[in-house]
């Protein structure tokens, strides 16, 4: 059996490094504010008129701000497996960037295993299949060995 081809579900938003993936943000070279998704044209800090940005990998760990799940199949453009499998969703606060980023939680981890403040890390997992191709997205996973 040949291995499925892995491609990003959303191009350019994260590295495809399976072991240590990062979200890819940008940082204003004038005021230092981080942006995700990337901001390229103009800084949104009202006190800054910056127009130059560095691409930066964001912290790949953070703490849960809150969490929930999808018990019902979401509408398109979400592509559901058949039958639909409920999944958890977490909003994770990155300490250095002081930013909350939403994402699905890895499959197999339900809300009963989550808690506000819990440390999480970024991983890559299949969002959906397209033929033989795996469309890969970032997901949040409880940080191995850590206790909140």
């Amino acid at each position, binding site marked *: 059996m040949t291995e499925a081809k892995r491609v990003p*579900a*959303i*191009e350019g*938003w994260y590295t495809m490094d399976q072991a240590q993936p990062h979200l890819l943000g940008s940082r204003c070279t004038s*005021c*230092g*504010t*981080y*942006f*995700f*998704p990337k901001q390229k044209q103009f800084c*949104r*800090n*009202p*006190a800054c008129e910056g127009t130059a940005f560095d691409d930066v990998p964001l912290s790949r760990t953070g703490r849960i*701000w*809150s*969490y*929930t*799940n*999808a*018990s*019902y199949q*979401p*509408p*398109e*453009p*979400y592509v559901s497996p058949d039958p639909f499998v409920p*999944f958890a*969703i977490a*909003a994770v606060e990155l300490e*250095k*960037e*002081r*930013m*909350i*980023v*939403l*994402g*699905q939680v890895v499959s197999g981890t339900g*809300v009963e295993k989550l*808690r*506000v*403040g819990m440390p999480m890390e970024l991983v890559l997992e299949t*969002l959906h299949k397209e033929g033989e191709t795996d469309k890969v*997205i970032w997901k949040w996973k409880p940080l191995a060995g850590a206790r909140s």
Partner: protein
Amino acid sequence: MSGEVAILGVGMHPWGKWGRNFVEYGVHAARAALADSGVRWQDVQFISGAATMRCGYPGYVAGATFAQALGWQGAQVNTSYAACASGSQALAAARSKILSGECEVALVIGSDTTPKGFLAPAKGYRPDDPDWVRFYMGITNPTYFALYARRRMDLYGATEQDFAAIKVKSAEHGSANPNARYRKKFTMEEVLGSNMVADPLRLFEVCATSDGAAAIVISSLEYARKIGRAKAVRVAAISTVTPRFASSEVEMPDIATDSAAVVEGHSFRASIARKAYEEAGLGPEDVSAAEVYDLASPMELDWCEYLGLCKPGEAEALLRSGATRIGGRIPVNPSGGLACFGEAVPAQALAQVCELTWQLRGEAGPRQVQGAKVGITANQGLFGHASSVIVKR
């Protein structure tokens, strides 16, 4: 205060899933508001419509659409769109016209016909649109409501029973409201027995989408005096502020918040009522009743805090004390709220003002808040829109 205008008339078309043209509901609400005001349509100098995005071109130009339906009479016209806060912006436009002296009396209308099922984004591969991205990742509207509810459980000890109790309370309030779509009373068992949608949110705690309309006739205080309505309820403030960078709370439909690494973080929702209170020269202690934006029942708790009705983390205690039910110290959603109405986007911010007007006049019948003198609304639309209106007598 010089910044006030008089509410001469209010009217609604009952909320429901009628499946008819939005113009029909809008005209019905407008005629009800005009009849209530004693002002003839021919005497209205400014018509301000809240737009709907789901009913084609007539919806984009709702102000003119309603003017034509009521019969062209040469009034000046405006249409406002600000997602769920559209009604307040249409009201704000009318108030500005009056306060600037450009006109004396104005009619404000919001009306909608909604499709069945989930409100899904436009088709195609569109990663530049945050609304598309979050749906692609399976993040629907209830996700956002649930994140706030769950956070309250972990931080403040909110329980599933608290959330269900809010629905039971809203349903009881709304059961006496002839304009509400859902007038059935609910038991705790029924709410807690309904399916989980987005943990901890259950089906009966998430609002539906509805057809409905609301309309308001406002005028200068001088015009109100002239027609013998000097004691009419007044609009004391309309807040339509944008967020302040860094907006540090999770906001639908964004996948990430602003970064507060360089600039201090701000709560958008907390800033909305602050502006309204400042403009009205009033504070939370003056409020007799509040109409808040309960897309999901637990959100009422957050709004109680954002409106300053209690301190952060104390909304559960406020709820459990019975203060927020009719007869309590500070009734919240005496109309029944979105739990009983469902969303009719351009109409709902106006419907909140209609309800508070009836409350302040003492015309709310079985759902009357005794001695109501000041009312405040809270409402929020996608992409940095929100509103809070303060009415007083």
